[in-house]
């Protein structure tokens, strides 16, 4: 370290390990071997290859997938300097060697033809190419040490961020004295997180699907758009082995998880909590489950929802409520989960709390739900996003509270509902800095754009938003040289910004690699592996992970008393809008990946566009069939979209999956389909203030389209929806399966 001496405690903070127990300062020699990673590069003909390069033979290196916040470990196959394929890293306790479709398609994010190659600076209405010096100078003048920007007037608007990038980001904010970090993720667990905290004492406990014998999912699409889709899918595989677990799914429109359920039930949207109360009632009344561990208020609330009343409110027949209760009782331990479609209401918190009450009643806490413990490295922990933060940011921006905003990893101009007027409010921030791999709707509004290297060209560390019971720091190492030499990794950009603010502390680090390498040297002794410093570093890179076991804790089990508003009909807007998220398009960020555009949607089998799902009854009433257009109109606006008719949607619901409808997101996404987020009503969860994604009421009408062009055509894979009696997918009963394969 050069420059001003800093004390050891602050030094550990700089390195991201503060709060991680006793640490010893060790020697800080850099490794003596010269590698590409240290920035020394020589052009050598392949006639004389490096020792580890065999022409024609792929070598696999470990890194971390960045398509969502699950942080699955990957192995990337590199041949002649090119990354060719990514596969799951079997050492990763998250993905366990597997990847989802988005992880596979991360290659196309890396090699995307619409990537930004140069920094951009706003000149009038246009963003024009500039050099890094110009771009950084622009930022330094407006947000450097001499700019006078102080405190919360410097804001950050990002997606989920964790690991050492979060440490540097925090340091950058600290340099202003700012706490204005707004983390926006559309697909989030903000509502259930608070309910978990209140009932279990922990925001994100660990779920054990593999240990459950029955799962009741109130809209939790854990196999699809969830916090850790691959991890839950690997658990699901054990859940389905003999003796086979039962999955019951309650949701307004069918998700990927619902498509795999043994019983799929569409409750009236927003009444999932009442259903939970009805089930509790049946458990206590019919199955003698003791309510002794429930507080009096909770017991009283349950008594208020008799089975018949619950059936009446939810529209789920009494027999089904009783059957669910019976299944949950007989197949212990069970697990009750909630997801976006249940939590996305004005009383979403109450629904999540009611589900947790069921877990307590059934004795699942400590069995299928356990504590994730206190994190080993609190500084590195994921800053999990939500939409509430976006509201707060928009309000601040509107009031002129910010001089500068740094945006990264989120595309709020696309995801923000129209009622927020986000574009207008964002434009009131005088200096908008964006770091991005591609031009998107938000980047297009920025004043200066710094082009990022892809995750597979960058160093980094990540902590998953959802940790399994083996929490790890996932290490991300470059798998190849940057395709575009004028791009920088996120870490390097953060470091460059920090050098403007805190040159004494950070000028010693040439690049982000040097910072990370140093950080690993300073790892607290409690977490070191592999003997020497170099050995530990090499092992961390080979496995691309570092165990980060925290301090174990016990969960509490204190259900909170909740009540539910009466279900109200809306004469002007009689239908509910379900803006479902899918494994693939996710929150719209993957719409620029051609493999995922061309992959048929798991449920509707639509490709390259949007669609609306309607129940046959509703479609009959409107007089529409597959491919016909309807308008979906809320108080906030209207979208026109072709319909797909099937029986996996509640008759009062129109489901329009999110992800399409981009206006400025490269050649594959722009001008394709519609964005249902734009017509969302201004409803938030009463307790958390989180956007109520599923609370929009709409009306639906047939729209005549004469001679639709290819852009308007709804293109689907496959003809017949029926097997027409042939034995394509056959099935046996669970009894027979458990008998023949149970041993």
């Amino acid at each position, binding site marked *: 370290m050069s420059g001003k001496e800093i004390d050891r405690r602050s030094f550990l903070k700089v390195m991201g390990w503060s709060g991680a127990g006793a640490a010893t300062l060790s020697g800080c020699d850099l490794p003596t071997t010269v590698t590409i990673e240290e920035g020394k590069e020589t052009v050598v003909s392949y006639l004389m290859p490096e020792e580890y390069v065999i022409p024609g033979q792929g070598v696999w290196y470990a890194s971390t997938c960045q398509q969502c916040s699950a942080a699955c470990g990957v192995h990337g196959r590199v041949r002649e300097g090119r990354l060719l394929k990514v596969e799951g890293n079997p050492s990763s306790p998250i993905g366990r060697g597997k990847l989802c479709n988005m992880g596979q398609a991360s290659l196309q994010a890396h090699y995307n033809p619409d990537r930004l190659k140069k920094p951009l600076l706003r000149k009038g209405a246009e963003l024009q190419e500039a050099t890094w010096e110009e771009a950084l100078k622009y930022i330094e003048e407006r947000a450097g040490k001499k700019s006078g920007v102080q405190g919360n007037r410097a804001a950050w608007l990002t997606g989920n961020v964790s690991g050492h990038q979060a440490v540097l980001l925090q340091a950058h904010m600290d340099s202003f004295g700012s706490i204005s970090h707004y983390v926006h993720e559309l697909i989030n667990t903000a509502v259930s997180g608070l309910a978990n905290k209140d009932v279990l004492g922990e925001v994100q406990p660990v779920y054990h699907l593999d240990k459950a014998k029955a799962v009741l999912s109130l809209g939790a699409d854990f196999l699809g758009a969830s916090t850790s889709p691959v991890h839950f899918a690997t658990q699901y595989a054990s859940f389905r082995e003999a003796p086979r677990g039962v999955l019951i799914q309650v949701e307004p429109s069918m998700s990927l998880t619902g498509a795999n359920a043994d019983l799929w039930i569409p409750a009236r949207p927003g009444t999932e909590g009442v259903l939970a109360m009805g089930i509790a009632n049946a458990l206590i009344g019919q199955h003698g489950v003791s309510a002794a561990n429930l507080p009096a208020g909770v017991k009283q609330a349950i008594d208020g929802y008799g089975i018949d009343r619950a059936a009446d409110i939810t529209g789920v027949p009494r027999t089904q409520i009783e059957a669910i209760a019976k299944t949950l009782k007989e197949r212990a331990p069970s697990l009750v989960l909630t997801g976006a479609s249940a939590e996305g209401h004005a009383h979403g918190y109450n629904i999540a709390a009611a589900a947790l009450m069921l877990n307590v009643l059934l004795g699942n806490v400590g069995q299928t739900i356990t504590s994730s413990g206190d994190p080993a490295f609190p500084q590195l922990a994921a800053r999990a996003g939500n939409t509430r933060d976006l509201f707060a940011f928009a309000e601040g921006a509107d009031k002129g509270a910010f001089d500068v905003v740094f945006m990264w990893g989120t595309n709020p101009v696309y995801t923000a509902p129209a009622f927020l007027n986000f574009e207008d409010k964002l434009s009131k921030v005088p200096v908008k800095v964006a770091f991005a791999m591609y031009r998107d709707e938000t980047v297009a509004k920025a004043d200066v754009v710094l082009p990022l290297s892809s995750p597979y060209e960058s160093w980094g560390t990540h902590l998953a938003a959802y940790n399994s019971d083996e929490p790890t720091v996932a290490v991300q190492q470059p798998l190849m040289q940057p395709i575009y030499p004028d791009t920088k990794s996120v870490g390097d950009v953060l470091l460059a910004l920090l050098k403007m603010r805190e040159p004494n502390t950070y000028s010693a680090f040439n690049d982000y690699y040097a910072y990370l390498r140093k950080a690993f040297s300073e790892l607290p002794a409690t977490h070191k592996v592999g003997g020497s410093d170099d050995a530990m570093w090499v092992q961390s890179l080979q496995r691309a992970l570092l165990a980060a076991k925290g301090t174990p804790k016990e969960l509490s089990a204190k259900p909170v008393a909740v009540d539910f508003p009466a279900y109200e009909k809306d004469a002007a807007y009689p239908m509910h809008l379900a803006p479902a998220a899918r494994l693939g398009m996710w929150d719209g960020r993957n719409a620029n990946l051609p493999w995922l555009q061309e992959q048929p949607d798991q*449920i509707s089998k639509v490709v390259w566009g949007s669609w609306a799902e309607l129940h046959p009854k509703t479609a009959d009433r409107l007089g529409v069939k597959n491919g016909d257009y309807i308008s979906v109109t809320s108080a906030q606006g209207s979208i026109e979209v072709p319909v797909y008719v099937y029986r996996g949607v509640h008759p009062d619901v129109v489901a329009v999956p999110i992800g399409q409808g981009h206006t400025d997101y490269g050649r594959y996404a722009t001008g394709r389909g519609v964005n249902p987020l734009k017509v969302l009503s201004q409803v938030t969860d009463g307790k958390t203030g989180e956007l109520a994604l599923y609370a929009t009421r709409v009306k639906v009408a047939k729209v005549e389209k004469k001679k639709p062009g290819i852009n308007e055509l709804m293109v689907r894979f496959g003809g017949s929806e029926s097997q027409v009696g042939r034995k*394509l997918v*056959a099935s046996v*009963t669970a009894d027979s399966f458990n008998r023949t394969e149970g041993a």
Partner: protein
Amino acid sequence: MSLQNILNNWDKYRKGHEAGGHHVYEHMWSMVIDLNKCIGCGACSVACYAENNLAVVGKDRFEKGQAMHWLRIERYWDEPNLKPTASDEFQQHGASFLPMMCQQCNAATCEPVCPVAATYHTPDGLNAQVYNRCIGSRYCSNNCPYRLRYFNFYSFYETSWPEPLNLQLNPDLSVRDKGVMEKCTFCVQRIRTAKDTARREGRKVRDGDVQTACQQSCPTTAIVFGDMLDPESRVTKLWKAHEVELGKTAQHKQHPEKRGYRIFEGLNTDPCVMYLERVREV
């Protein structure tokens, strides 16, 4: 295998398995797909695009049925043994997913109709497609009861991989040009590599040496791949356990509850892919 060899031994290559087969097989690559575990997510399909240089054809060509998805996930809303469903108000048993790739039939209907022997049976038990020999008659595709062969109606390489997407192309196999038929190869390039490695190390190919791209990615491990001639391989054991045998048009099981079945085996195609039935609560 040269063309001359094929011409000289035409009869031999055209003999079906009921006449004792036409090869001394070195391997018999086979797949088992457990529909109880498959969730229909499509990770396998995208992995296949990445591994096998599959072209993205775009919306208009997809609409014409020209997509090149070697591995596709079919989704049905009914099942023959789940009755009745038409009168139910809701899709209460979810969906029925079916990953479909070339079934690598041992009595393949695509093979005998090829006028130039561009598709033939390898000593590995695969239906090989020789791109250089293919003249694009599309007879094979017409004759495939599974509709698992895909024809290059265009030079997709001109539009599918704009720079730098082309850098991702797998150099272990070719990019196909207009006028050529293609299909799932069971990741023959991976089989090739595993066989070469085994030979170099002076040993036989071990079970697990070859992982197809779809199998590798599957988050629920629903796909098992291996050599049926290896008595210790997982696939051999699974076929045995589920009482399904190659070379039959109907299985006579001692325990009819065993889940293994082959699609359309009654057509005497003798597919090398065995599916395990879904499991349903009733």
